[in-house]
């Protein structure tokens, strides 16, 4: 069956569309809705979004691959995104990364076999004053230490 938004999401999409002077501008918001609804932006989802907005499929694919936050591949239940930019690295982000790799037995950009965790390294997240920082889905964990990482992982079921 072809993919489609639920009725509720269709309503949300209509409300978003109404806010923009030009339809194509709603592409990024539509992609966010799609990601929330389908978890992964598959080629079928790309086609659906393109039709919805009346934009060429290639434009949807460009957006999907240009930005780092849209998921073209399935992610684990918890997406661990560790900032490894300057302020976090000055305060030990690379040690945190090694610790996470060791604990999860995966490398950056990989997902654990049980699909629970995906580990990514990311650029500056804007939490430089409380570095190092780890983003877990939409939550931010600041002033990280390896001990805090252990406590956090134990809590994520």
């Amino acid at each position, binding site marked *: 069956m072809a993919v489609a938004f639920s009725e509720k999401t269709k309503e949300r999409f209509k409300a978003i569309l109404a*806010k*923009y*002077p*030009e339809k*194509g*501008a*709603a*592409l*990024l*918001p539509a*992609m*966010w809705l799609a990601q929330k609804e389908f978890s992964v932006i598959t080629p079928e989802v790309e086609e659906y979004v393109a039709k919805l*907005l009346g*934009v060429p499929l290639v*434009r949807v694919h*460009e*957006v999907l691959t*240009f*930005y*780092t*936050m*849209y998921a073209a591949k399935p992610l684990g239940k918890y997406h661990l995104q560790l900032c*490894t*930019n*300057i*302020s976090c*690295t*000055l*305060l030990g982000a690379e040690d945190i990364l090694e610790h996470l790799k060791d604990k999860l037995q995966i490398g950056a950009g990989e997902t654990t076999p049980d699909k629970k965790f995906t580990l990514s390294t*990311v*650029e*500056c*997240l*804007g*939490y*430089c*004053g*409380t*570095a190092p920082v780890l*983003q877990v889905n*939409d939550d931010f964990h600041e002033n990280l230490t390896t001990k805090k990482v252990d406590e956090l992982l134990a809590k994520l079921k």
Partner: protein
Amino acid sequence: MPEPILSRNFSKKNAHTLGVYIQGGGYEALKKALTEMKPEQIIQEVDKSGLKGRGGAGFPVGKKWSFIPKEAPKPKYLVINADEGEPGTYKDRPIMECDPHAVVEGAIITCFAVGIHWAGIYVRGEYVKSIERLEGAINEAYAKGYLGKNILETGFDLDMVVHRGAGAYICGEETGLLESFEGKKGQPRMKPPFPAIVGLFQGPTVINNVESIAAIPHIVKNGGEWFNGLGAPGIGGGVKLFPVSGHVKKPGVYELPMGTPLREIIYKHAGGIRGDKKLKAVIPGGASAPVLKPEEIDVPMEYANLAKIGSMMGSGAVIVMDEDTDLVKTLRVLMCFYAHESCGKCTPCREGTGWMAKIIKRIEKGEGESADLDTIVSIANGIRGRTLCPLGDAAVGPALSFVTKFRQEFEDYIKVGAG
């Protein structure tokens, strides 16, 4: 210490809600602007305030507004740049999280002054809480009649949306941001035409940083001269938020007069270096600002003064490195960042940032060659000034300053390897 202005609501409970914001004098400036002032008068006050763009370029805000043609065939737009992504910078996030109505109020006044009826706030995708707070503030403002049709019975109409980015440093560059706003990949446009003439949806567009916009209500309420006078004597230009990170005892966002000496920010406000170690290097304005040596930190933190010593004010983000910092590793982190974020449109930046990252990685591994440092300098000079947007130049700043000012450390790495 004078009363904080931009950060006054950072630790106040529920300051993000309309009720608390109004109790603190919120939306008084809006009433003054819309009912007692003419648009030209508002622009004059902003001119007098000496407010310069807080995103990094430091362009005078009033002047930017005055470039917008009065009559245009297409609608005019305001775009607020909340794509805070310059490494070391975390000053716009607390404004949006703790004081979102200041952004909304500042945006309404800006639109009234320039004759705009549609405003969009482009927030980086990771700032989920900022997005929620801004959307909440916008909804409250609509319900109260500060947004929508016939605002405060003045006949002025304005709509406002929050647009969520999706992870791309380049979208902080204003034309990349416009492309992204229009639902495209965020590759910068050729200038001219400048956004003031052909911007969002081809209409004349004002693009301002969050901190600039949040200052507007205060300028309208207390006057441009008052704001200008808050800057250091002889410098002016108001107050600014300085986010400090790295090896300091008290990292944080400090609201201080424009022109505060860098030494004072590091040693007085941020408490000095952790463990009372010696200072080795400091980046004064976000990752793209050329690095400074300890003997250069008496510089006043202000656009012209920093430019005079070959660095830049940028976002005002101060990144402090103590004596134990490995500068080869630090430069590798920065070069990998620019190589990752280069959008790929201009060859010198796309290729050059990648080459510089590769060379510095090689040096860090202990496999550097004696010609490597000169090669980095040559690549950097090949990028500079040859790209559509400032990302290329941004990579050049740290590359050249690190390898020239701390050349010995890099040479030691090449000669004897790491550590």
